[in-house]
């Protein structure tokens, strides 16, 4: 209204009146709409809070239920039906480590190789390359238990016939997480601008030299993130391992190609199914152990991705 004070008399009044009329016209009169949009915002926030509180609830439950068993025995003692109060997960942890080792050895060359082929070398107009692409997308959606059947038919029996050993579990889980690694590696390669590759080619490097020395190093952090996330999924995966024999109650450290094996999530399931209360507490403590390891691994992977996410 400072303008109207400068203007005297009728013109000042007219300006003030016009200002009020304009304000009145554009003011949102529709309080019903405003309430609705506040309600909608509240609803969205509620949905997010519910989704996130699910993580907190699982962690809190595992902690309260399993807190009495958070001791060294949990990690260093093997399973036992006699000494229930001091039984632990040592054998399962060793089994999981073996499985993870095999998974890493298999998925890095296979995942990165397939991603490089599809992003850098494949001619997209050829039907077989499109078929490979579609196939990987579909493979990523195949239920994990079906991979268990694959492991049972091919690794435990059938062509490989390794039996119910850690190697079978490892190969099964590796194939299960392979599509994830390929898709993540492809995204990482896609994020490297083509000018990097073209610059290298223009300087006289061969195609493979350019890919190996320029594209791959630039995409490596993204690929590593994919591999770490795949490993963390492999640590928690229980369903396919049930089918390749991880449910047996082994009390000795397994060897890769011989003897029964166990894995952390499967032994947790096994303990949980027993009627004694000690075992149920032990299962909760195992869940807490597994979640703690996984949250550390996943946070590291997400940090790594954010840290090296370049905008070219």
């Amino acid at each position, binding site marked *: 209204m400072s303008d109207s004070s400068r203007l005297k008399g009728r013109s000042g009044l007219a300006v003030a009146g016009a200002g009020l009329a304009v304000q009145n016209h554009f003011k949102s009169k529709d309080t019903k709409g405003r309430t609705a949009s506040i309600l909608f915002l509240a609803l969205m926030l509620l949905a997010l809070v519910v989704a*996130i509180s699910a993580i907190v609830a699982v962690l809190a439950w595992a902690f309260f239920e399993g807190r009495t068993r958070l001791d060294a025995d949990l990690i260093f003692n093997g399973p036992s039906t006699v000494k229930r109060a001091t039984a632990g997960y040592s054998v399962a942890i060793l089994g999981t480590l073996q499985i993870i080792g095999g998974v890493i050895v298999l998925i890095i060359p296979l995942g*990165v190789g*397939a991603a490089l082929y599809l992003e850098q070398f494949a001619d997209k107009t050829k039907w077989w390359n499109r078929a*490979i692409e579609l196939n990987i997308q579909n493979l990523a959606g195949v*239920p994990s238990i079906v991979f268990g059947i694959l492991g049972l038919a091919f690794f435990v029996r059938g062509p490989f016939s390794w039996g119910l050993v850690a190697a079978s579990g490892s190969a099964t889980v590796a194939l299960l997480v392979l599509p994830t690694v390929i898709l993540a590696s492809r995204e990482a390669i896609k994020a490297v601008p083509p000018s990097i590759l073209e610059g290298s080619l223009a300087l006289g490097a061969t195609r493979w030299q350019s890919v190996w020395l320029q594209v791959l190093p630039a995409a490596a952090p993204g690929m590593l993130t994919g591999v770490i996330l795949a490993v963390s999924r492999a640590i*928690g995966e229980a369903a396919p391992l*049930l089918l390749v024999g991880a449910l047996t109650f082994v009390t000795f450290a397994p060897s890769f190609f011989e003897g029964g094996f166990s894995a952390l999530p499967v032994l947790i399931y096994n303990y949980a199914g027993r009627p004694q209360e000690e075992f149920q507490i032990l299962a909760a403590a195992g869940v807490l152990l597994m979640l703690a390891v996984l949250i550390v691994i996943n946070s590291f992977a*997400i940090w790594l991705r954010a840290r090296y996410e370049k905008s070219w």
Partner: protein
Amino acid sequence: MSSTVMSERSDRTRALRSDKPRYGEKVIFGFLFITAAVSVAVTTAIVIALFQPLPGLFQEISIVEFFTATEWSPGFLKPVYGVWPIVVGTLIVVITALIVAIPLGLLSAIYLSEYAPNAVRKTIKPVLEILEGIPTVATGLFAFFWLRPFLEYLTPWLPWGGLFSTGVAGIAVGLIIVPLIASVSDDAMRSVPRSLREGAYALGAGKMRVALRVVVPAAFSGIIAAFVLGASRAVGETMIVLLVAGAGSPSLNFNPFEGIQTMTAYIASRATGEIAVGSVVYDTIFAVGALLFVITLGMNMLAIRFVKRFREVYE
């Protein structure tokens, strides 16, 4: 004149060509192709593993009975193998899961894509990723030991029966597919062009109206893809269902307050039980697995098609 130009050009291309054929690069190319082809081999192996035992199985039991009978009683004197009870079990779990996950996932996605400040978005997305990474054994145990008793405590008037509950299994599965639905729908909504939103704002629409009447319809096929992917994850979920809905003997049961067996739980429980290799019951694992594979494959193809249609419109 023109012939000298031609010869000059061919000289130049010859100079640019490498002086020796690079066999090393060819070998590497071959290796990379093989790594990509492994995935095709895996799919082929899955199909062989699932379908190879079927002809033998359907000589022992009737294929018509398998798909139509409403009873699954393998151990009986006159065994009946009808797949309906476990298909119904899976359906109840999936429907409950979607009832939980669609509102939660879609509302979260609308918030992340349309409302959230960048900083909030950058913190919440990784948290949702961690939720997606929680092993299903953990979620299953939580649901069995805490969620089901808690819900029974809250609603004692409901007909809870026994230790197991298909409905609670569905809720738990719903919680684990929320991040998937949220992130796929969020991607779809974020790729709706800005101009559509700005046009709506210019016409005087408020933020909520733009989100619900412009962005969501524009991203609709991407959002449907998210729902289908979520449903496919729910169909294939094993551990939660095994723990919370129970692994008893399959029977046709529509009651979400009692236990039931699903396709995945059937496979897991039969494969770990003491059943002779090569027996009819053992072979049914593969038949149920094949059915599961076909169902999820169909759903994934559908989702891929929806995403593709969406991309064609906006990219």
